[in-house]
């Protein structure tokens, strides 16, 4: 009797397990296309990079299938060709530092200019709002390279700005703006500022502007309304915008190439150099992965601190 009962529960359990297996198989089947895309477009290339970074460079580019940690060593250290002495690769480090610094400044400038712009658009009437948004997105319609050369035209020694300033008698000699960090900063801010404006605008559009009146009514000055009410409530948009500007700035290639004139390299240019003239693919791969790590660490810190600050408001 009891044995019979046992066998029936057992068979029920195995039935259940079978149904579960079927479901797992079906789910796997359904998610296959997404998994293929993810592998081919994201994980696959990353894996290839990881493997390449542990190989030996080929004589004319490419790689030799020979394990080596030399590439990772070269990211931070420099080995003299003749006497094999080891020193810190300060050229690489200064390029990394310039990239982080310029990306941070780009994000900051984009925020300082983009926040009021988003506020302006969000406070227009609904009919005119779309026109302003349209104007913000227009630059996306033109190729990045062309837009960057347009900036070059404007700031070069015989360019628009210098010509106007000389014609007005403000200066005698043209200002050297091109091929400086400032030129790169200007170019990157111009290219990425829509990515700051749009998420902040999206947050502000949902913002209840009656809260501004309420704070205003409760003795808050204009500045305090901004700091205590508007900024905390549109913070998700500010975080999204900052990430969207900071990450591509860090990996920027065209802008520092054109406006930095090859003298002021950023990480993107350094990586390109390894796959091109440098003929050191493993080092290029190791540099790329280093960039990835920098971005991820920066993001984790940023989101953590933003959350902490957001949480502090909550009690």
């Amino acid at each position, binding site marked *: 009797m009891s044995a019979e009962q046992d066998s029936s529960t057992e068979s029920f359990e195995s039935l259940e397990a079978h149904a579960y297996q079927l479901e797992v198989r079906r789910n796997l089947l359904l998610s296959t296309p997404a998994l293929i895309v993810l592998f081919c477009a994201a994980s696959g290339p990353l894996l290839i990079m990881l493997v390449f970074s542990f190989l030996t460079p080929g004589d004319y580019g490419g790689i030799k299938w020979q394990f080596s940690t030399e590439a990772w060593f070269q990211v931070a250290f420099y080995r003299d060709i003749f006497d094999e002495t080891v020193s810190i690769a300060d050229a690489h480090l200064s390029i990394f530092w310039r990239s982080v610094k310029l990306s941070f400044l780009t994000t900051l400038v984009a925020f300082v200019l983009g926040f009021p712009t988003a506020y302006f658009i969000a406070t227009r009437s609904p009919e005119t709002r779309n026109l302003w948004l349209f104007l913000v997105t227009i630059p996306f319609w033109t190729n990045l390279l062309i837009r960057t050369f347009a900036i070059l035209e404007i700031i070069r020694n015989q360019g628009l700005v210098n010509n106007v300033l000389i014609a007005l008698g403000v200066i005698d000699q043209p200002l050297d703006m091109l091929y400086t960090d400032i030129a790169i900063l200007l170019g990157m801010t111009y290219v990425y500022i829509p990515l700051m404006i749009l998420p902040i605008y999206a947050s502000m559009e949902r913002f209840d502007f009656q809260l501004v009146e309420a704070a205003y*009514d*409760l003795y808050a000055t204009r500045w305090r309304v901004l700091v205590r009410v508007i900024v905390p409530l549109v913070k998700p948009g500010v975080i999204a915008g900052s990430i969207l500007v900071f990450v591509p700035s860090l990996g920027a290639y065209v802008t520092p190439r054109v406006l930095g004139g090859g003298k002021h390299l950023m990480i993107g240019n350094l990586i390109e150099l390894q796959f091109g003239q440098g003929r050191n693919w493993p080092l290029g791969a190791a540099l790329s992965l280093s960039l990835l790590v920098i971005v991820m660490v920066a993001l984790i810190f940023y989101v953590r601190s933003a959350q902490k600050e957001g949480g502090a408001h909550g009690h």
Partner: protein
Amino acid sequence: MSDDVAVEARGVSKIFGASTDQEVRALDHVSVSIAQNEFFTLLGPSGCGKTTLLRLIAGFEHPTDGAILLEGKDISALPPFQRPVNTVFQNYALFPHMTVAQNIGFGLEMQGQSKDEVANTVGAMLVLVKMENLKNRRIDQISGGQQQRVALARALAPRPKVLLLDEPLSALDLKLRKEMQVELKRLQHETGITFIFVTHDQEEALTMSDRVAVMNEGRILQVGAPHEIYNRPNDRFVADFIGDTNFMPAEVIEHDESEVRIRLPSGIEITIPAPPGLPQGSEVTLAIRPEQARIVTDADAISIQGSLTDEIYIGTDTQYRVDIGMTSPFVVRVQNANGERARIPLGSRVGIAVDPRTIQILQD
């Protein structure tokens, strides 16, 4: 002006979209003065300018013409954060990123009070609105009625000279609304602050206010105590907007010092007590409240006659509609005595008896 005037509007006009083709005159030379410690209500249909007047007092808008005075001082040019006036908004406008206590303390903090002072006042306010045990909740974690209390506490905490309330009860259900009406009266009593209350609900206005201003199309039509507004409306709009009213055209035949002889459309003449000032032969409108008329089955002895078309039972009262040969029927409301009502067959000829002293004469 005497010392006990809290707020005064002097010939205030507000034009929106001036110098465009969509010019809207929201307020048209409005003058009113509101006494200290008064529960004053601005009553009118939507778009009558009542909220605009409130926003002018708060400082969110500035008058196109005229001046707003607070305790005798012109505050028309001051921004909202420099006016000792606080507002309870229709949808409360509580700060969603702050707790109940932080919301209530916001105004005090902005005034630069110390942490201890803020905490003390917030504590007292939480007790006043009976929210002590919810002080650490976020705004989206409390009910609509509780949000209402927080909004009140937040606006009262800095002890403003005047509290402005912009239809604060309209989002609540009926039962909660009745509770909050009592609550608001209590708060006004306990704090001794002047309340200016905006509503389109005439019942709310009559039950809560010390005085009511009835507004329409950017103007104040009548200001007075609720019973004055109800019993002695001086304007057809006021009589129509507040409670139900029967209107009847009439012509002035004779006028002496205390009485006026009037001819009804049916040709019958009646005498009504009225103050002097109605020229002979002028067209007037008589306003008669449904509950001040009676149905009389012996029709011949009565001046106003007609046939009974409808009899509607509404619990405490019965409403009779009588066709007296005008476009709309004459409505009579009779209280049901002992739960019973007199049954009158529909279509029968009835008379409508009215005490002449309760008839209001409106000049068109």
